[in-house]
């Protein structure tokens, strides 16, 4: 068993798992940031046009703040899922290598 090669393989597996999540999370965050800015503009426009009452405008601002927090919570959770998958992918490589070297299903 080559420890250096094992470490390289584990790192590769972890990076691949992380990339699968970050490739999707980045455009999601970009899209939400853009949409939140657009919605803020729409609130101002629709309020000026009389489509939103003053009370509704206040409620919408609160709803937008809550929605922004939801996006951050989603990003945080995606980070946890990515970390979980990266660790498990690396452990899978470790498990296969150790079991192959041992000649039996040791772990």
């Amino acid at each position, binding site marked *: 068993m080559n420890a250096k090669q094992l470490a390289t393989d584990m790192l590769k597996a972890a990076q691949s798992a992380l990339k699968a*999540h970050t490739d999707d*999370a980045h455009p*999601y965050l970009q899209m939400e940031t853009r949409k939140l800015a657009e*919605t803020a503009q729409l609130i101002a426009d629709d309020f000026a046009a009389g489509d*939103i009452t003053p009370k509704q405008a206040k*409620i919408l601002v609160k709803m937008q703040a809550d929605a922004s927090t939801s996006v951050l919570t989603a990003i945080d959770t995606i980070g946890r*899922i990515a970390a979980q998958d990266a660790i*498990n992918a690396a452990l899978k490589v470790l498990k296969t290598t150790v079991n192959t070297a041992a000649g039996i299903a040791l772990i």
Partner: protein
Amino acid sequence: MTVFLHRLTLIALLLGLLSSCSGVLFVSPYDAEFDRGLASLQEDTAVFLARMRRTRGSHDANATFYDEAAARVDALHMRAELYGEKLNQGTLANLDKLQAAFKDLQEAHRDGPLTSSVWARTMNTHFRALLQIELHKKHSLTINPPEENPS
């Protein structure tokens, strides 16, 4: 004899460590039923808000929608709790915010018709935040297939 015992202890510790490290679980696994329930609620909400925008429907004539939506969010919350609050904390926190958003929407509707497109946009942000988590849980199944995942 002492050296042998030390080596045996070390091997046992190493095996124990490797066995316990066969997999970690930070976030609950993907739940297709939860995902479907969430997508269905999002669709019904979008249809309701499109109708309110077109018809300028009053709150009183459409109050049942809010009762049903609250019950459906409660049902989703209960299902998400089955995996444990710690493993599903992100989803549970966002479901609480979704429930609050429906209450805010109802309060706004009491004040006047929902004719602006921003209501649907805002509700969709809440839904997307929840659906994104489900999407990544689903990705997880591809990266670490179920038989490889810790139970």
